[in-house]
């Protein structure tokens, strides 16, 4: 797994010993793979690609293979974690907004009654 297109041999090594990072095109390819995989997860109502790894692999076999082929292992893990994190973040923001709106409504009705 990992740098499938580049991991063969030392092609990802720079001549001075550094490790060449994916360039713009390979990044774009990785992101495409990620988006395809995540939309597949959305279709199947799977949020966490790590926790529900087996089910995700079963339902989105093609996508997960392409995704993992296009991105390094750490990136795959990072994107999967980020998906969950962003989902929870959005949920929290939504909840807080709703609470705020409810509170405002409550205060307004109280205000109307008192005045």
């Amino acid at each position, binding site marked *: 797994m*990992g740098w499938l297109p580049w991991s063969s041999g030392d092609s990802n*090594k*720079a*001549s*001075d*010993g550094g490790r060449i990072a994916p360039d*713009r095109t390979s990044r774009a390819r990785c992101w495409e793979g990620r988006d395809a995989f995540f939309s597949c997860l959305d279709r199947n109502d799977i949020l966490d690609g790590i926790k529900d790894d087996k089910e995700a692999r079963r339902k989105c076999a093609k996508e997960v293979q392409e995704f993992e082929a296009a991105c390094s292992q750490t990136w795959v893990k990072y*994107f999967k974690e980020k998906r969950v994190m962003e989902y929870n973040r959005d949920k929290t923001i939504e909840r807080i907004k709703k609470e705020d709106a409810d509170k405002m409504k409550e205060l307004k009705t109280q205000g109307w009654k008192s005045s």
Partner: protein
Amino acid sequence: MPSSKLATGLFSRATRHLSDIGPIRSQNILSSLRITTQSQCRAYTQSQRPRCTQNIQNMLSARSCNQFSTSAFRAKGRTMGQIKQRNSTGPFSWKAALLFILTGAGMVIYFRVEKARLERKRIAEMSKGVGKPKVGGPFVLKDLDGKEFTAEDLKGKYSFVYFGFTHCPDICPDELDKMAEIIEKVKESTKDEKLFLPVFITCDPARDTPEVLRAYLQEFHPGIVGLTGTYEQVKNVCKQYRVYFSTPRDAKPGEDYLVDHSIYFYLMDPDNDFVECIGRQDTPESASKVILEHINDWKREGRPLKTE
């Protein structure tokens, strides 16, 4: 004879009388005149004297009531005493007094305004280190040609410092694309390529060697100065800039790992003092607007910029 004798006698008497009277009279007249002029004079001055003191009293009372007018005093200066007094005041005429008061008032106003300005400046200077987070400081790194690059090399220009690593999955590339746009916008507005110095400092020196960095940054903007160094040097610069640094110390270049790091751009002024943070929420437009405002402020103050 007797008649003539009488006559001469009479005459002589008369003349003698006359001659007697004459000098006496003239003496009398003179003396009386002298007396009268003296007495008149005395009477005059005596009669005037109370008026004179009265005038001064009036004047003093008038002055105490804030109705002091030098011209009135001058107009009334008919008596010797007053004329004398006026002359004794020398150059202190009402013109001089007015000039003195106006100059004094002008000086007071000027010093007050100037004092307020200096106070503002002092506070602005003070807040450079106190009010704002102390970001940045001395560091030693290497540029992509292997030359030493220190904090001193950032001075004289507005520098735009970003920390990242080439294996960054998604945020850094986005931010570096934004950086490239900002560089172009600032360059366009200032018409000066050397005034704005974008810097990329890697948090991952094990993998990001000069060659790797050069190839990576070339994709975004050729003007970005890439900096790297030893693990300790990078750790130090991250500390100076308050950047969270989580790179594993014994990371092998071949390993696959991610580095957590801050995702802010730090705008530093030509004194290398921190001025502004540009974050994810900023668009290239808003960011370059902020940067140009700072650059123009600096120019307007006539402060030095290195443009070689």
